[in-house]
């Protein structure tokens, strides 16, 4: 059952990846790029979870949690840079 379901869903997710990557390349300003990279990393988390199901290896799925938390850290640092113009710990 999963042997035909996961490739179809993965191809649909690859279409969405392509649309987000077009926005990352074309994005006129910095917040557009950051927003598209956030969506890209959330979708990579789903992609990694699907790969873990497909290959039957349970240790791949730990990467999904780290990807979803990395996007939030990226948001916070870029926002701090935009408002304060430095990344110092002050």
């Amino acid at each position, binding site marked *: 059952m999963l042997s035909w379901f996961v490739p179809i869903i993965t191809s649909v997710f690859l279409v*969405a990846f392509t649309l987000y990557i077009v926005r990352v390349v074309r994005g006129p300003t910095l917040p557009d790029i950051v927003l598209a990279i*956030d*969506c890209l990393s959330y979708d990579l*988390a789903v992609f990694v979870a699907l790969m873990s199901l497909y290959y039957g290896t349970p240790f791949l799925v730990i990467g999904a949690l780290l990807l*979803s938390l990395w996007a939030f850290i990226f948001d916070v640092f870029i926002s701090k840079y*935009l*408002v304060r113009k430095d990344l110092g710990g002050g």
Partner: protein
Amino acid sequence: MVNAVIDHVLLYVGMTLVSIGAAYDVIAGIGMIRFPNFYVRLHAATIGAVGGAALPLVGVALIALASDQLGSYRFGVCMVCLLTAVAILITAPTGSHILAYAAYKARASPREPCVHDALRNFIKEGGEEE
């Protein structure tokens, strides 16, 4: 017998959730391409985060509960997937709100197709120290 029925129900419900999530994700990608402005693209990003990432992760957790290939690791995979879904539901709105506030305050992106700007009198612009 009962276990086989429960496994089939979990498998089909999970596959339905993952399919709905993939459709949401393509819709969010089209919106991310075609919307004119950063503040409008935030709506597409929210669709891509909640409908396109948290919902398929719940579906993957249900599929992993019914999977024979993972063995006794399937409960661990299910819990990590549910934990990732909850983390996305908490952090994605917070992150996009922080980013919108910073972009508004620093004037980092144009506000050109603007109908009504309710924050004009409340947030001091410029981004320098006050």
